[in-house]
């Protein structure tokens, strides 16, 4: 299944792209996707996105097709989702 991952804020700065299209296995969970992304984009990306235990940081917002996704990332199935947006917090003024 093809999913667009959209990056914002500091994540976009690290990856150098606003979004990327990924081809994932059916049934991939959000947790698995985050693991793949961390492997792909390196240490700075990982430190920004997840805590030491590998869980998404509480202040990282995940958006599925324009709606905030809330729940257990390890079981959150991405089947049927077209766009996953990852938002790290910003407070620039």
């Amino acid at each position, binding site marked *: 299944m093809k999913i667009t991952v959209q990056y*914002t*804020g*500091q994540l976009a700065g690290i990856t150098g792209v606003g979004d990327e299209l990924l081809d994932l296995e059916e049934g991939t969970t959000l947790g698995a996707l985050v693991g793949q992304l961390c492997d792909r984009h390196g240490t700075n990306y990982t430190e920004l996105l997840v805590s030491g235990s590998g869980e998404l940081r*509480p202040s990282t917002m995940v958006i599925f097709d324009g709606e*905030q996704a809330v729940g257990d990332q390890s079981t959150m199935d991405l089947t049927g989702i077209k766009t996953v947006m990852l938002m790290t917090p*910003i*407070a620039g*003024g």
Partner: protein
Amino acid sequence: MSELLSDLDRATYEWQLDVPGFGEEGQAKLRQSTALVSRCGGLGGPICFALAAAGFGKIIIAHAGELRLDDLNRQILMRHEDLGKSRAESAQSTLAAFNPAIEVEAVAENITEENAADLVSRADIVFSAAPLFEERFLMNRECVRQDKFLVDSAMYNLEGRIIPIVPGQSACLSCLYPEVPPNWKRRFPVIGAVSALAANIGAMEGIKMVSGLGTAQTNRMIYFDSALMRFQTIELKRNPECRVCGNSA
């Protein structure tokens, strides 16, 4: 409510009184309202300008420190001749010259645990534009406690996001960000036009919330990326476990 507008008000705001759904009633609501804006830099400054132009009766500006040269790529309420002077007072001076019919109060302090409750209590709506989450969380907490409208606007690089908050009805800032993000840095990349864009969207949301015009985007985040001129509204959810507005708060 129309009798609350003076002839000067009618003359000054004549063009916006023509906006369908706004009119003298909407103008009078703005006239009666006080806005607290923290701070008055690249984001808060244009918010203040928009609120002053729209005719809010009073604007309270909270911002500590003195103007520096590297503020001037974005802090449009300031003047080069004010380098080294109080930012809040410089902003007050600009706004007073722009619209002498409104009241502008300068508080040369940032939002702190000591002043947050009092400053929020004196406002009908709060516009949060501080570069530190600690200040934003204080304003959010007090707005929830005191049942005040809050518009939290932020930007980074070429992106911006605006969250209009009606306590008890919509997700609050702490629903979305339960802790101070450990990786946020005080210094951020910014072009003034981007912060002004976020500011004007935030100001418009606040004008709608106070006046009743249109539909405020509560329970939504307005997000834009000006690199691509991509705008999105994102549906938000309240967190029942939120330490500020949740069931156990």
